[in-house]
């Protein structure tokens, strides 16, 4: 049939033939990947980007963009992308993962990649739990939050307080690093953060890391209203949104 005049507002770097994507209704991954798509469009780097997605709901993005993509293992996207970047520095490598993959099973990779100042862009989706496996506690689960493995709510006495990833990365990186925490409820700001993070890689200044506060209505078991509430009211109380570390030498960029 003929292509209608009005088209959905998708970034050019998205693959339309794989849409609608496989994420759940109301999933924040979709909003984050849209912001990322625009960032790729804005920088005109579609031909040089390699996108790596972790196992986690992120894996559903293995055919999401019109960019070369590698689906890796749970927690291993950072090393796979590191390997590519070390072999082909001209490529722009994006490691896309969840909070479980990044802060739990892959923490040694995140910490050491940051410490070695790998010229990578790591994007980590913080949805406060392990979504793909059905909603277990993650390092980011909020105190009192009920998950499948904290059925009576996360008890900080037993399992500590949630991990503040960007703050940790900021603490172990040098001047050249870019570290930020965005949210899918501020898509324009998020897009700007992605642009800066990618530019930091392109200009070879250092490691760049963006944590994204995101939604998971499926495992949160929330309706649209509750979903927005948890994302916009509850999460930012503990996870502060904004740029945490800006490379000293960086000039400002327009989204």
């Amino acid at each position, binding site marked *: 049939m003929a292509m209608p005049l009005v088209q959905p507002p998708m970034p050019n770097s998205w693959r339309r033939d794989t849409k609608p994507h*496989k994420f759940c*209704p109301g999933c924040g991954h979709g909003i984050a990947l849209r912001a990322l798509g625009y960032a790729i469009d804005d920088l005109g780097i579609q031909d040089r980007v390699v996108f790596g997605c972790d196992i986690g709901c992120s894996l559903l993005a293995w055919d999401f963009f019109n960019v070369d993509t590698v689906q890796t293992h749970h927690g291993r996207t950072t090393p796979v992308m590191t390997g590519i970047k070390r072999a082909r520095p001209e490529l722009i490598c994006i490691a896309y993962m969840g909070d479980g993959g990044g802060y739990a099973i892959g923490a040694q990779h995140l910490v050491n990649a940051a410490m070695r100042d790998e010229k990578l862009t790591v994007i980590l989706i913080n949805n406060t739990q392990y979504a793909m496996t059905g909603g277990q506690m993650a390092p980011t689960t909020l105190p009192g939050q009920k998950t499948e493995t904290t059925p009576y709510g996360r008890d900080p006495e037993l399992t500590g307080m949630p991990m503040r990833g960007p703050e940790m990365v900021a603490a172990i990186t040098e001047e050249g690093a870019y570290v930020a925490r965005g949210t899918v409820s501020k898509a324009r700001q998020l897009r700007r953060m992605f642009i800066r993070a990618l530019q930091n890689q392109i200009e070879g200044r250092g490691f760049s890391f963006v944590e994204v506060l995101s939604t998971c209505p*499926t495992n949160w078991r929330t309706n649209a209203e509750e979903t927005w509430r948890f994302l916009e009211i509850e999460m930012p109380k503990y996870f502060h949104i904004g740029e945490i570390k800006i490379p000293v030498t960086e000039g400002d960029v327009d989204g």
Partner: protein
Amino acid sequence: MAKPLKIVIAGEGGQGVQAVAEILAEAAYEEGRQALYIPNFGVEQRGGVSVAFLQIGDRPIGAPKFEKGDIVIALSRRAIYRTRQYVGPNTIFVYDASAEVPPEDLPREAKKIVGIPAIEITKRELHPRVFNVMIMGAVIGVTGVVSPEDAKKAIEMRLGYKFAKDPKLRELNYRAMERGMELAGAAV
């Protein structure tokens, strides 16, 4: 020795097909019969078609999955495409008439193909909430795999606490089940 009855029920996430299979399995179990139920599951939490594999018989059941069902029920357009593979020459294929699917896309080799206006009817006569209970009725109507009484017991077990709050709900559910049985009866 009779082989177990093999049932496949498939629909969209919201349609509650797993609940149907579970209730039927529990009803059979309460009757002291053998039952084995397994849902499909995968990496996608939502969005995939939801499929329930159910077997009910009188002796321990062999494998949890099977190639062809005795009765296959598809409650949405996508469900029809997803479940065609389970339809064989001895399969009764029931689908929701509202799904716009070109006839040639319906399974060919089925023993019988029945379209029932289930969605339509629940909307009109009952309430979308009890859609799946009506489907359960339809299954019972077609197969008689469990007695309506046990089915009701099973429903009671599951939703009793809700019925307690609002007895009308019990009524609604029972009506839905009976309506489903009629429908199927008429169709087959």
